[in-house]
Structure formats: structure tokens, C-alpha cells
């Protein structure tokens, strides 16, 4: 089952992962989970909070479409994507991606590809708020490189 949730609520990664993993059938041999946290420090210094803007409707649909495509490409039936928007404090989870699969290679590939997409091309606009003000963030060169590499 594909589950995509774009939410302003705090994400509890362990509770969500447990709930999702409970769906698995007898043929499931592998669960891969990624959690991305808001960091308290960045290249610009201390981070007080992040503000993530999304485009309601459009963002959900784009992420759902990409998730479906990744699931089909890797033959992974069960993928969970949860992504915060709004104000996020250091230490809080921003994103959770989990995949259940018979074998581990497909689950790793699906989660990594989705994260590469989510970190670079998902419809979010992000501001980092630090002691000296707010700053819009765009994907890093490293994010772009990983994305190119995986889309080869």
C-alpha cells in the first residue's frame, strides 16, 4: 500500500514505522526506514527553526505520483511517505520514508530514490531562521549530484 501524508503535525517516526510495518505479509523480508531531522546547526550557523511552505493539493499530488512511480520501478508494494510543513524545531522529524519488500535491495533503492527526489525536487520552499534572520534554502550541489546519479 502507498501511503502519502503531508502534514503540519509532529511526526512520531517509531509509532508510524510500527503501524506501517504491521501491514507486512509473510513474504516481507526487509524494512528500510529513513528519518530526516531538523538540524540545530547548518553551514550558516545556529538554526532556531525551519519553515517549510508547500502548495496545498499540488504538493501532495506530485509526491504521490513520484512515490507510485518509484514503487512500480522497484517492485516495492508498500511505501510510506510522511512530510511536515510549517514551522519545525531542531530535533524534530521533517520527513519519514519507509519501504517494505521481500528483499532488501529493492527497499533500499526505493527509499534512497524517494529521498533524493524529496530533498531536491519536491514542491516545498524552505526558510531557515537563525539568530541573524531568515534565509531561503535551495538544494545543495551534493543533493543535485545524488539525484542525477540515481536518475541515470
Amino acid at each position: 500500500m502507498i501511503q502519502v501524508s503531508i502534514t503540519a503535525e509532529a511526526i512520531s517516526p517509531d509509532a508510524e514505522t510500527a503501524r506501517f510495518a504491521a501491514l507486512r505479509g509473510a513474504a516481507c523480508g526487509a524494512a528500510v526506514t529513513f528519518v530526516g531531522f531538523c538540524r540545530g546547526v547548518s553551514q550558516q550557523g545556529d538554526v532556531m527553526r525551519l519553515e517549510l511552505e508547500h502548495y496545498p493539493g499540488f504538493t501532495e499530488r506530485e509526491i504521490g505520483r513520484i512515490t507510485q512511480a518509484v514503487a512500480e520501478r522497484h517492485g516495492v508494494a508498500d511505501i510510506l511517505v510522511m512530510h511536515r510543513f510549517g514551522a519545525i524545531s531542531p530535533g524534530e522529524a521533517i520527513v519519514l520514508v519507509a519501504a517494505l519488500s521481500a528483499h532488501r535491495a529493492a527497499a533500499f533503492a526505493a527509499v534512497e530514490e524517494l529521498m533524493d527526489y524529496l530533498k531536491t525536487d519536491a514542491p516545498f520552499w524552505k526558510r531557515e531562521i537563525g539568530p541573524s534572520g531568515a534565509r531561503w534554502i535551495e538544494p545543495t550541489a551534493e543533493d543535485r549530484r545524488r539525484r542525477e546519479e540515481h536518475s541515470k
Partner: protein
Amino acid sequence: MTRLIFLGRLRDAAGHGERVVTLPAHVETVADLRSWLAAGDGDLGAALHERGIHVVVDQVICNRETENVRDASEIAFMPPLSGG
């Protein structure tokens, strides 16, 4: 009536996240819309003409400046995506 949406740093440039307008008769295409908005606010116009700004017409990304906007109910301007 058309809802215009300004996302990310375009919200800062516009001074608001969205507004509802009645398009004047001469605004027929995406290009017309950009010019009309630029005529009303030079700073916003400059921001909307930057490279990498995408236009989304009724939640579908628009790839042609000649796309008609007269029947659109919602048009969004998206700066380059930040990712999550």
C-alpha cells in the same frame, strides 16, 4: 475571478501569499499575465521574470508562455523548489 498564488520567496516579493483578481480583457496568456503583474509592481515583475520561476495553471505545471489563462481559476508562481 482568478486566484493568484505566490510561493516561497515570491510571497516576499508580492507582499502576500495569494490574491483574487479579475483579469483584464487583454490578459490572455501566461506571458500577458506576467507583464500585467510587472506593470502593477516592478519588483514583483522582476522576480516573476527570473530564471527558474514555474507557473502552475489549475495545479498543472505550464510549459508554454502562450498557454491561455482566461479559464483558469488558480494560477501559482513557484520559485525553484527547495525540497524538503
